[in-house]
């Protein structure tokens, strides 16, 4: 029988994707027969830009690789530069880094929970979990000054200290999440419709996860106990007990389906709370940054020679940065690898044989971050012209805009 398939494009502009990304599916009835992935709608050429800027400028560029992982990329990047230049981070700085990173994980996982609910058509979950998310954003704003893009990381440490007066506020938030966690678990793991939509959907086997180099909760849900915080502890994680979480802790079995990915993320929420508590208890005193004066730091980096890698377990998986300094103002090489870059390939085995209705939740279950992944260069060859915005133009434009806004 000759099966008549038709193709359906999803993206780049699609309501289930917050970000542009193109999929092409060959559909037979409602079943997916073939998947074509065409990422690249979100390229900004960040690595290329980074190779023309000095390391401190790159921190802010790295922060804007992705607005959700805005602590992860600077974390990994700073580590890479520190490793390359041989800078030692003060202990207190390491602890503050971990606290910020774990607060980000809380915010990111709750955000993901809401998005997953939304993809399932369960908007109440979106509203309730995002209401809970506001609490940690408030705390991050209190600690760093911004809800997103914290700007806390600096090569050699952090820019802002956590004072004694701020600690009760952190503890209050942690207590709040301990209360709320029960509710979120109740919604996700006990609701029959969510179970119906997520169990045995988008299965990724252990072999596929290994072979396709999946990272983060995606790979842990398939039963691979892989977590950079556990395998190669960096920063203050070296002092803390962190164990990779697999879904068998909760349900006693590993299926590698969407449901398992939900379990892993929810359990990591609890883990993050515990890590922050440990950090608060053991926080050493002292300096927060190795070199306070930025000019001096820049000079030091200009003279440095060497290469280093920085790895951080972001909410979505391992972030990997490689930096090579070669006694110049700008790094010779800056390479950034976001978790979604590796979690891209596993989509094909996950999606094959599923239905159209499963696409959003399966794609969302890896918590994709296209902005992270598509950071590489793109060249706009329209008319063969290269558009460069000059600083002067920019200034003029902004002046015009201001005039236009104020009546």
């Amino acid at each position, binding site marked *: 029988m000759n099966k008549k398939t038709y193709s359906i494009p999803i993206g780049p502009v699609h309501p289930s994707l917050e970000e542009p990304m193109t999929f092409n599916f060959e559909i037979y009835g409602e079943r997916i027969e073939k998947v074509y992935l065409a990422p690249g709608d979100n390229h900004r050429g960040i690595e290329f830009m980074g190779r023309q800027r000095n390391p401190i400028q790159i921190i802010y560029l790295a922060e804007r690789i992705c607005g959700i992982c805005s602590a992860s990329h600077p974390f990994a990047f700073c580590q890479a530069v520190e490793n390359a230049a041989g800078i030692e981070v003060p202990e207190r700085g390491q602890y503050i880094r971990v606290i910020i990173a774990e607060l980000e994980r809380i915010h990111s996982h709750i955000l993901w929970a809401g998005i997953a609910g939304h993809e*399932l058509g369960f908007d109440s979950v979106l509203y309730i979990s995002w209401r809970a998310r506001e609490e940690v954003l408030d705390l991050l704003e209190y600690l760093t000054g911004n809800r997103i893009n914290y700007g806390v990381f600096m090569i050699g440490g952090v820019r802002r200290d956590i004072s004694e007066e701020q600690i009760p506020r952190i503890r209050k938030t942690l207590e709040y999440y301990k209360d709320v966690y029960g509710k979120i678990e109740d919604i996700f793991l006990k609701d029959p419709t969510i179970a*119906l939509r997520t169990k045995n959907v988008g299965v990724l086997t252990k072999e596929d996860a290994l072979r396709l180099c999946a990272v983060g909760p995606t790979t842990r849900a398939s039963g691979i106990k892989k977590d950079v915080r556990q395998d190669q502890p960096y920063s203050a994680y070296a002092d803390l007990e962190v164990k990779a979480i697999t879904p068998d802790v909760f349900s006693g079995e590993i299926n590698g389906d969407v449901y398992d990915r939900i379990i892993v993320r929810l359990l990591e929420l609890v883990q993050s709370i515990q890590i922050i508590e440990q950090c608060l208890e053991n926080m050493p005193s002292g300096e927060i940054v190795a070199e306070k004066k930025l000019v001096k730091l820049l000079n030091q980096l200009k003279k440095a020679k060497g290469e280093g890698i920085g790895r951080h377990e972001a909410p979505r998986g391992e972030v990997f940065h490689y930096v090579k300094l070669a006694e110049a103002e700008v790094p010779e090489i800056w390479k950034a690898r976001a978790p979604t870059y590796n979690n891209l390939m596993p989509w094909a085995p996950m999606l094959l044989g599923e239905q159209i209705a499963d696409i959003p939740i399966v794609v969302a279950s890896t918590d994709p971050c296209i902005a992270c992944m598509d950071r590489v260069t793109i060249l706009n060859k329209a008319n063969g012209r290269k558009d460069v915005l000059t600083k002067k133009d920019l200034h003029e434009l902004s002046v015009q805009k201001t005039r236009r806004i104020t009546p």
Partner: protein
Amino acid sequence: MTSISLFGILIKIIGAIVIAFLGVVIGLFYKGIDRKLAARMQARVGPPIRQPFMDFFKLMIKENIVPQNAVPWIFNGAPIMALVSSITILLYLPVGNIPPLLSGYGDIVLIIYLLTLPAIGMVVGGFASGSPYANVGAQREMVMMMSYELPLVTAVVALGWKLSQVYPQLNIFSLAVINARPIWGLVGPLGFIGAILLFITLAAVTPGELSKVPFDAPEAETELAGGILVEYSGRNLALFGLADAVKTVVMMSLTVALFFPYNISHLLALSGVFALIADVLFFLVKMFLVMFVEVSFVRIAFARLKIDQVSFAYWVPVAIIGLLGLMLIVLDTIIV
């Protein structure tokens, strides 16, 4: 029905216009209440109750875009068909003590047929718009239609059959007749359980008929970007919105007429105009309660089902519940 005078026709026309207007207004009003309630249950403030009216007026002045590869007359005709057919059903539905305007010209079987028309309008519009999303949405809508028809008919037929057993002389499928004789009073304990099961069946069909979560696969926003409606804009979208609002009224009044046709006027010892007003108000309250249970609450408490899960749900559990209800009512009648 026998003598058709010019005056009678005039009255009917005026009545139809009034009912259509009221149906639209009440429908939009209930939509507003529904959105407000849902927002409240989701810990939000929610839009003002008059929001659907404002949305409607706004959409009416928006540009109406007909896609390049659409069939224009079908594309533009589909929303009108959906709206007109849902208003037509309204004319067959009794409100409180007032018999339906077209009482005698058709019965509940006709209503069941008419109920499919708005859905068919949407399917036609979806196919005519020539977008792959709308296509998938239209296919899903057809699957849905085929799925919920059996339980819907089961629920209605069971009631009609019971009436025919008790009152063999009456036109048992006339809604006016059903409306005047509540099912709960006619059955024994076994039949009572059966009637409850039938009510559950109808309650399960309602969200499907109205394309609301968990049965909103045809319009799934996160999957199909609005599904059938993806290519519609401006006036056509507004008309579909109206059709949806009117359909809500239709399904609610159908449920009320079939299962809760009680009136309040004789309890309050009212008569004349006051009785009429009290009954109509009571009817609206009943509709509101039914809507709250069947639409608003269900909408916020469930995730969307996949289309195969939807048709499974309708063909197996819901249909079984419906048939069980039918059997219980039959048993009840035979034993008694």
